[in-house]
């Protein structure tokens, strides 16, 4: 999907660095990562658990709490650095400009209040000019947009009465109430059945196009990435190891980690006789990272240099970069600056 290169960059994450101070050591969750999301574009942030994708998204909205420490970097939203904002200033952006949906919808709702009251509260909190009736009407419209057949009745229900799939749709509706420009989706379908997942992805796609909303979609499933994302950033152990358009990543992936992750998605069309490939070993312990590439211990192609030095970020095509020593030899390392 070709995006007009003239469209504005909405979210620009530059050299973001976050670590956690734990009693076993400093856990470097996010290591100077950079990515950009354009207006109306869907960026996928892919990686295993512990790769730092959720932490980086939380830091955008200022949701990190101690022992998390932001060591450096900038997060520019519409040109303005939102990383160091006070809670009040950040709250003004949350919900109105940037919204977020989470993996576990149940924990985002208050079981004591009805869905309707929580939705109208959201509208009223972000739009001081709206009246209660307006807020209710907007909520019902939004619920209809997420394919809920009986929105009026749903407004009177409580969160514990609804199934996971329905709650997730309600959460999407709530997040979109104030028409944000950017939606951060943190593994919203991981906990759901495959059929519900398919329906939710369809809803998200439809809404994204309708409202020309940018999305940062965090997942560990490449199947979903293929369906919904325009660009992809692959994270491993706190580093971005490859970045590019969806076509680049799927048809000309450059990093061994990306390739392996993609191969592990069980597909309906591969012959049954082939065994399912998998990555040996466990994700590296973030408190004990060595000097070399973050993937070297599990990479089937690792060589000595991989263990000794961090690979530089190599540009393979316009907009497609990978941090791998294999590519550093071959491709022209135009942007020779190391990724660390």
């Amino acid at each position, binding site marked *: 999907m070709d995006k007009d290169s003239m469209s504005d960059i909405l979210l620009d994450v530059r050299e973001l660095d976050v670590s956690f101070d734990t009693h*076993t050591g400093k*856990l470097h969750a996010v290591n100077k990562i950079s990515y950009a999301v354009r207006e109306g574009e869907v960026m996928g942030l892919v990686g295993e658990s512990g790769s730092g994708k959720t932490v980086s998204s939380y830091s955008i909205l200022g949701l990190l709490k101690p022992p998390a420490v932001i060591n450096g970097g900038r997060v520019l939203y519409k040109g303005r650095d939102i990383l160091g904002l006070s809670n009040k200033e950040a709250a003004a952006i949350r919900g109105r400009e940037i919204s977020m949906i989470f993996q576990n919808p149940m*924990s*985002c709702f208050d079981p004591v209040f009805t869905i309707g009251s929580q939705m109208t509260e*959201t509208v009223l909190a972000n739009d001081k000019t709206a009246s209660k009736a307006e807020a209710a009407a907007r909520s019902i419209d939004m619920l209809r947009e997420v394919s809920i057949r009986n929105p009026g009745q749903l407004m009177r229900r409580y969160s514990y009465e609804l199934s996971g799939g329905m709650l997730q749709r309600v959460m999407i509706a709530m997040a979109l109430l104030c028409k944000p420009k950017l939606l951060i989706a943190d593994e919203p379908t991981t906990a759901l059945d495959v059929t519900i997942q398919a329906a939710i992805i369809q809803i998200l796609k439809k809404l994204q196009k309708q409202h020309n909303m940018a999305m940062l979609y965090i997942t560990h499933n490449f199947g979903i990435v293929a369906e919904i994302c325009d660009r992809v950033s692959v994270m491993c152990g706190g580093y971005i190891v490859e970045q590019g358009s969806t076509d680049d990543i799927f048809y000309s992936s450059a990093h061994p980690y990306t390739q392996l992750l993609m191969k592990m998605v069980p597909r309906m069309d591969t012959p049954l006789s082939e065994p399912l490939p998998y990555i040996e070993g466990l994700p590296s312990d973030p408190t004990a990272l060595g000097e070399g590439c973050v993937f070297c211990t599990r990479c089937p192609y690792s060589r000595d240099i991989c263990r000794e030095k961090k690979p530089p970020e190599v540009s393979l095509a316009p907009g497609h970069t990978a941090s791998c020593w294999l590519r550093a030899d071959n491709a022209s390392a135009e942007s020779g600056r190391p990724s660390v």
Partner: protein
Amino acid sequence: MNGKVLRSDRAGGIWKDALRRFCANRIAVISLAVFLLICLSCALAPWLTKYSYTAINVHNTLAKPSAEHWLGTDNLGRDILTRTLYGGRMTLRIAFASTVTALIIGSVIGLAAGYFGGRFDFLISPVMDIVASIPVILLALVFEAALGWGRGNFMYAIAIAAIPQFARLVHVCAASVMGSEYIQAARALGVGPFGIISRHIIHNVAPALIVRFTGALAESMLTCTVLGYLSIGINPPTPEWGNIIYHARNYIRLAPHLMIIPCAAISLTGISVSLAGDGLRDALDPRGELPAARGLTAGFLSLFKRRGAAN
């Protein structure tokens, strides 16, 4: 949060981690030290004091603290320090005995209800509810009246009044353990009821139980002193913090230290054991996962916890 990548090389156990957390909490450590010091001093009263707690000396009544009598003397010339230590010995002994008894009986009841469920639920509700609704002072009066005054029968009342909280706690913990998948796994493996109880239920119930014990101990102690003050409990001349206060009330203007000292002793003991209990709870259950071990307010507030919702 699933999939934690944190792996420590120390094969430290859950209990060791808890110990480490507790020791890092200065207030908790100090409180525990103070409480243990108080208990120890009271227990060793016979060896720490040179006077007898009944030694009356009418020539030296209401004396101020001096080298002879570190805390002064009371209206009958008895050494206050001695009486305070012996008083504490009595109060604390009663508190410990009744709380431990209540813990044992309450745990058995709670375990039966939690493990078997269904037909044993009646034990918790209504039986424990009824017991819990009887005021302890009334119960003490009943026991004293029925079994003879002044012979320490009120202690049964204190123990009985403390049973429901343990029964309910153990019931909740045991029921939640029984509902979890690892118990199903144990059943699938062919582990019998004894194995399930001794292995799984006990070490999952223990943390909350320990914390509750400290709270119950403070409560029992207070109840004992109140009964002593009302003359339903231990009677003079045997010192007990409650009855010391009662007899000191007449001298509140002449010699306020007669009343202040036992009150301070009770407060200090109560506060230190409560703070130590708080520290224990934070050490054993840092994420607030254990049921019913949280305070009322914390438990209530956690119902409203939102996980960074989009507004």
